[in-house]
């Protein structure tokens, strides 16, 4: 399964946009562009803050209700991150083009259309954050995100981080969580049956994936093998991607 491959990102692949990023992980490839702050249409204008407009375009066909729902989830998360008060009466437009989705050998992907597509949210959010960083948009913090599934096996339930499409198909419940770089919970969406204990478990797992670079820096070496099973260190990935970009931009310093 593609989940074992490390995440990969390219910053500013599109020269004409203010900011852009291409991100691929776990079989998903998403390209994002950020334009803004630009003049907003009269009906979108807020007197005291920028309007964040998120557009999700699926890999094939035109977007429908499902994309509109994804947009509303991302819109509320991203406008928390961007310092919208810095740009009153303007528009910040974020376009997310899904380029590839993982193949699911077990089910016909067409049928999945009816339910909300949870595993794509981390890919979309991560790409949007990278594109915003590439556009040098003033932000409160960066964010990392993970999808966690609760799978019941032989009567006991366990949490699966970075769940594959098959895991999600058979899971009792699926959760998407996002954390800011200050370890605050930014987004929590759940689907399915689960108990409070299970949710606490899910929260801990997601937090470990999203916020672990601080822990590994503190020298907890023993946990490293354990952690690597639970997916890559997203925060470290974000930092190293940006480091490459900043070094290339400021080579003249």
């Amino acid at each position, binding site marked *: 399964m593609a989940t074992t491959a490390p995440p990969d990102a390219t910053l500013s692949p599109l020269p004409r946009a*203010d900011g852009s990023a291409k991100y691929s992980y776990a079989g998903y490839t998403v390209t994002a562009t950020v334009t803004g702050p630009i003049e907003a249409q009269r009906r979108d204008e807020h007197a005291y803050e920028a309007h964040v407009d998120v557009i999700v375009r699926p890999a094939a066909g035109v977007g429908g209700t499902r994309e509109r729902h994804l947009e509303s989830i991302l819109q509320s998360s991203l406008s928390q991150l961007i310092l919208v008060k810095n740009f009153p009466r303007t528009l910040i437009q974020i376009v997310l083009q899904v380029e590839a989705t993982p193949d699911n050998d077990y089910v016909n992907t067409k049928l999945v259309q009816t339910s909300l597509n949870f595993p794509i949210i981390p890919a979309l959010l991560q790409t949007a954050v990278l594109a915003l960083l590439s556009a040098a948009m003033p932000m409160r*913090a960066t964010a990392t995100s993970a999808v966690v599934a609760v799978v019941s096996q032989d009567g006991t339930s366990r949490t699966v981080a970075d769940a594959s499409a098959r895991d999600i198909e058979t899971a009792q419940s699926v959760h998407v969580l996002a954390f800011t770089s200050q370890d605050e919970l930014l987004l929590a969406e759940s689907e399915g049956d689960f108990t409070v204990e299970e949710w606490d478990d899910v929260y801990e797992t997601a937090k470990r994936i999203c916020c672990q670079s601080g822990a590994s820096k503190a020298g907890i070496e023993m946990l490293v093998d354990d952690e690597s099973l639970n997916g890559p260190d997203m925060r470290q990935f974000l930092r190293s991607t940006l480091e490459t970009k900043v070094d290339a*931009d400021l080579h003249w310093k």
Partner: protein
Amino acid sequence: MAAEHPLVLPGDTIDPSLIPTHKKQPLRLGPGLRHNPPSTILPTVAGQLVTDLRKNSMWVEYNGGRYIPSQGDLVIGQVARSATDLYFVNITPYTANASLPHLSFEGATKKTRPQLLPGALVYARVTLANRHMDPELECVSATTGRAEGLGPLTGGMAFDVSLGLARRLLMARSREEGGIEVLEQLGAEGLAFETAVGRNGRVWVSSDSLKTVVLVGRALTETDEKGLGVEQQRKLVKKLIREMR
């Protein structure tokens, strides 16, 4: 170098030892930093944190994004239309137009003022930049009444470059500090041209020969896109000159 200018991401905590302190001067925060009262300083963009102990200031050095007007910047704008007593000038695409009063040109009176048609380029200074208001421009120094190089740009051609390159070209010593030598090299090769650099990522190039305009523009955009160093810039200039002849 890395230790001197650490990488910061939005929301990172800044090590207090990096924040300069001065007995008398207040701390000045430049672009990319935000003061979160009472006493937290947070970066808002990804870049290298630079501190100047002498001026007691700190800022984040980065490249990219859209130009956001700030007071005192020199920009190259394009006239969109004219109203009764001011021009509406476009500084960056798709943003609200800046206003340039008809009378803020050198020696302009109600009867004699430059007639600018839509599409004309002007080199202007930002006099008012405020997030709640549209920016205002001037083509004359308010204190001396002289143009000081500002005004309508006739002939030539404008090229788009990144904000970082525009900043480097505008540095007082762009060769030593900015590592940009392509214009000096082109001049040394015997080309005659004049340029104006706008902080909004536009470079205007003018010359008697159209070939020279295109060559200078291409040299600048290529330096920008490929991130060429001084040595590579020399090679590029040699190559372009050879191709032209």
